[in-house]
């Protein structure tokens, strides 16, 4: 499943808007063992970034204690119409991206 994004389609100049993101990921901690004693290798998302018209406005580092399917919500002040771009990077070369546009009146 692709990531879920919730960005308002419209806002007034200077509004504070809430941005919600959810991406499907197992977030395997790397601390668990299988029934036969082998370590289950770590497989997590390590970094999330949000850019607004190319400029980074929000970044989060993620760690093994974060549950599967990380849900992140944050706020931004919108001054001009444009595009939010989201990127998730993780173990084993994991990478996922999504975007959403907003019209500022």
């Amino acid at each position, binding site marked *: 499943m692709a990531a879920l994004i*919730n960005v308002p389609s419209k806002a007034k100049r200077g509004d504070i808007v809430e941005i919600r993101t959810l991406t*499907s990921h197992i977030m395997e901690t790397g601390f668990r063992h299988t029934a036969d004693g082998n370590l289950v290798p770590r497989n997590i998302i390590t970094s999330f970034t949000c850019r607004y018209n190319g400029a980074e406005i929000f970044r989060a580092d993620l760690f093994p204690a974060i549950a599967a*399917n990380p849900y992140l919500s944050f706020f931004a002040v919108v001054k001009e119409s444009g595009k939010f771009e989201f990127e998730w990077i993780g173990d084993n070369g994991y990478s996922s991206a999504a975007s959403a546009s907003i019209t500022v009146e």
Partner: protein
Amino acid sequence: MNTPVTRRSAALGIAVAATSLAAPSILRAQSMGQIVVIGGGFGGAACARALKRADAKLPVTLIEPNKTYISCPFSNEVIAGLREIEAQQFGYDKLAADGISIVAQAVTSIDTQKRRVTTDGGTAFGYDRLVLSPGIDFHPEALPGYDAAASETMPHAWKAGAQTLLLRRQLEAMADGGTVVVAIPANPSRCPPAPYERASLIAHYLKTKKPRSKVLILDAKDSFSQQRLFEKAWKELYGDMIERIALSQGGRVTSVDPATRTILTEFGNYTPDVANVIPPQRAGRIAGIAGTADTTGWCPIDPVTFESKLVPNIHVIGDACLGGGIPKSASAASAQGKACAGAIVALLAGRTPEAPRLTGICYDTVAPGYGFSLIGNYQPKGDIFAEVEGVATSPVDAPRELRAREAAEAERWFQTITANTFG
């Protein structure tokens, strides 16, 4: 709290004194112990009966405002038009014949110091042991937009009766090709597999009467009770008629707008033709009056005696208690009611109650003649009930004859539990 005495509160004090003078009929405890049970559902009625059965001379009062009890188990079949509401209705005549004093009034206050319950009829009932079986209420803050008025357009049908019939009428009025949303809250909630049974039986109704329609489940959970059995049955019986959006796909409902019949999740809006919104729950109203609910909204208990951890001499059974592993179901409430009665009889006799072993049975019917079941055993472990050995669930791969047999068993289970409780 130290409130200064104003003229207003002094006047109120006089009014209260006048009321208590007008109602001097306090039925005081005999030496053997006066028991009051509040709530005449599967838990409270079973408890009152078990108390009377253990000792016919024990004075037991059951306070329940409704003269007719309407059963939630099997009410999903009423919604789907497979059963009439009359088959869900039970009275208290047989309990009265057992010698239980039935009071058809609503409780307005409980004085936990003086051990006295007052009703809207103005009567006060003294107790040595009080049993609360208040069921559930809806959490008004947990789902913005969803209040009593909203339930008239977006029925919950999570308390059987008028709501059950309203949801049925809405389904009957819907045009073919419509969408029915069933919005499901996170646990703990009353009867965890029941929302999925409901979605199944609604799909059965639609498949039979309005085959171009669909059921959309918006779910605040990722996994659920009997999931593999349900999903297999859905595929087998209803194809792609039932769609489910789980928590991690954005299925959690965050608010509703009854004016436009809109359901909002964290990632989308839905405006279905029929919106069955099952809101987040907490212990019933009486628990709030008694002060037995904690910040979770549910009532912590000692699982051996069901006595409240917060208020002495009050026992809480059924959906309202924090039971741990034991699901909130009619079968569990009935088992708890009987075990609680045993504990109270022991306590009154000065004996130490034995730790109960409870069995909960759950049947799910996904279509007429297609059922499956889950049986669990539970014992006290610390502050809660933990599941112990003896869990039995229907196999995921089974011939239709077994499903048909289990559907018939479900019906027999209902006849038995209602006969035991009310018959």
